[in-house]
């Protein structure tokens, strides 16, 4: 039984795994492969079973199945598949040049990257190759050792509150570990970054009514299913928690959005909603830095994609020019010539 076994594998490694599994199955082993990655499920399986809401809603041969129909079964309704609209990118919002940061395995080495207003840049890579240091940098939890790190033309902030004030909206990689305070209410979690703003704070006392109202609006706008602003956050489903945290990140119309594994552990319905919000924000002029281990997500959202390996980053190249195998090779450290031209020039 394999449960999401390809989370930390490059596409090439995943292929090797599948080959091995096919061999084992041919010699009589029964294989139960649990995954939300539809291409893999379709590539590997003889039979596909779909679970939804704790029930089995489909049990059919893989032959003849396609992504669209499976996705529909998983959600229970028609699922949109959008390709990103070509952007008219504006001025650079995030500019990294010759950047070194962090230490150990997850460090960043000589990173050059520009993310412009209105575009979504996706960062691919197996976890542990520097992405989390990059995320920590943009979140304000880490500082560069050398090199340039500019947000909206000025050096990046040194603390999370600095970054929030500059207009950076951030989603953390692991909502349980450092996103949510489970014991507190929806409203309390929503205002955490803005707790000292005069909207929610009068001379050190919290404005309870304002917090409640802000929460009600966020619940409505982001479709957060919960009993109300006072519900304890840990009782909500993962998808609804993530939607609330997204509402928090997007409050105040940030100019730069850090979306770090934004749909990890979410069902298709919630994933759709989160993707829609990110696209919307980009369309309205925000720059989005998307870090994800899910190649489907990267291709669905990104205008440009860069790949990280061992602390180094390929140039961010038009997503239309890339395919899974090129990214897979880059993830393993063998970037193809497709990544070469157009070196980033930070304005």
């Amino acid at each position: 039984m394999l449960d999401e076994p390809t989370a930390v594998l490059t596409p090439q490694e995943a292929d090797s795994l599948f080959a091995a599994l096919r061999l084992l199955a041919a010699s009589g082993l029964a294989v139960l492969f649990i995954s939300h990655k539809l291409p893999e499920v379709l590539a590997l399986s003889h039979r596909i079973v779909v679970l939804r809401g704790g029930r089995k809603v489909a049990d059919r041969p893989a032959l003849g199945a396609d992504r669209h129909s499976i996705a529909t079964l998983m959600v229970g309704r028609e699922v949109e598949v959008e390709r990103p609209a070509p952007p008219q990118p504006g001025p650079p919002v995030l500019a990294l040049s010759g950047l070194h940061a962090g230490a150990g395995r997850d460090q960043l080495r000589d990173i050059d990257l520009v993310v412009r207003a209105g575009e979504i840049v996706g960062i691919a890579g197996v976890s542990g190759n520097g992405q989390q240091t990059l995320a920590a940098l943009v979140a304000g939890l880490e500082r560069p050792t050398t090199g340039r790190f500019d947000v909206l033309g000025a050096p990046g902030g040194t603390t999370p509150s600095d970054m929030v004030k500059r207009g950076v909206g951030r989603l953390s990689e692991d909502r349980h570990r450092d996103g949510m305070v489970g014991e507190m209410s929806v409203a309390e979690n929503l205002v955490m970054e803005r707790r000292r703003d005069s909207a929610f704070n009068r001379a050190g006392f919290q404005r309870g009514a304002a917090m409640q109202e802000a929460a009600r609006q966020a619940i409505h706008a982001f479709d957060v299913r919960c009993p109300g602003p006072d519900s304890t956050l840990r009782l909500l489903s993962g998808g609804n928690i993530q939607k609330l945290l997204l509402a928090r990140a997007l409050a105040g119309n940030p100019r730069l959005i850090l979306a770090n594994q934004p749909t990890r552990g979410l069902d298709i319905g919630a994933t759709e909603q989160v993707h829609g919000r990110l696209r919307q924000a980009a369309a309205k002029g925000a720059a989005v830095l998307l870090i994800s281990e899910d190649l489907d997500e990267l291709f669905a959202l990104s205008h440009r994609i860069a790949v990280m390996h061992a602390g180094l980053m390929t140039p961010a190249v038009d997503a239309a020019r890339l395919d899974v195998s090129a990214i897979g090779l880059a993830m393993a450290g063998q970037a193809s010539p497709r990544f070469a031209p157009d070196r980033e020039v930070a304005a």
Partner: protein
Amino acid sequence: MIRFEPRASTPLVLLVIVPVLSALAALGSALLILALSGAPTARAAGLLVQGAAGSVFAITETLTRATPLILTGLAAAVAFRAKLWNIGAEGQLYAGALAATAVGTGIITLPPLLMIPLICIAGAAAGALALLGPVLLKAKLSVDEVVTTLLLNFIILLFVQMMLEGPMKDPMGMGWPQTSPIIDEGVLPRLVAQMRLHAGIVIALAASLFVHVLMTRTVAGYEMRAVGGNASAARFAGIPVSATLVKTALLSGALAGLAGVSEVAGLKGYLTSDLSPGFGYSGIVVAMLAALNPLAVVPAAIFVAGVFVGADTMSRTLGISNYFADLVVALALLCVLIGSLFTRYRLRLVRAA
């Protein structure tokens, strides 16, 4: 099979009943142990209740005993809420008492309206400082605060004993290791004629209200709760975790220090090394019985105080050791821990399919 399911919300009735039942269960278990030891249990129980609440004297004694317990209970509640394991309230209490004595035995004389606040501030500051060390060690060097606060209790007590036998010994105390008495202007006034109940209880009740408002209404209290709930998430959202822990420590230590001030300036009048029979540790039980709620600390402290005062009466009349009270309090902590399961979870009996 019994299954635990997390509750979506806990009905208020349950939140009140569980600590009460825990307290009664503790009392009951201790009386059972008493019965097993051959003592006249029914009479003992009666004396316990009578000693705690059976006369004006009993009630004032209980309230007097509750005064430091409210303060150390608040100290523990504030700290534990932020996941700061302050087990050093005992030492912080003595630090506060020492400071109160240093300031209040004649080195400076002011009218009562100024003298009393001065003594309180000195004691609170001393208590706060006593906890600041361990907290800074935790924040900067990742040293666990449980052991440091615990060991500091012993260090502070030895320091107090050193002071009592040396520089702060009462020259007119006939050689006993005790300090000079607090000057009249600094003594907390008695509230009931011929009883020992003093204004310290007013300070304690005010503190309870203050902490409640702080925790539920202010940004500072919100930050303390967030850090206690998930420090990583609080940090990510921009809450300065170290600074918040320091603030929490200062408040917690100050409250424990005030307990020391109250005992010295209100009850005893001077400092000896047996000022506190474990108020700091009992404060932890009070805080747990109150489920870390600052308002609930008051009735919880009164219960614990009642047990101690009642046990004293029981001891004087029947000769049963008043360690009985310590046993009840310890059992109460264990019972309320189990009780907390019922407030967090709902029990479901599941029949195997």
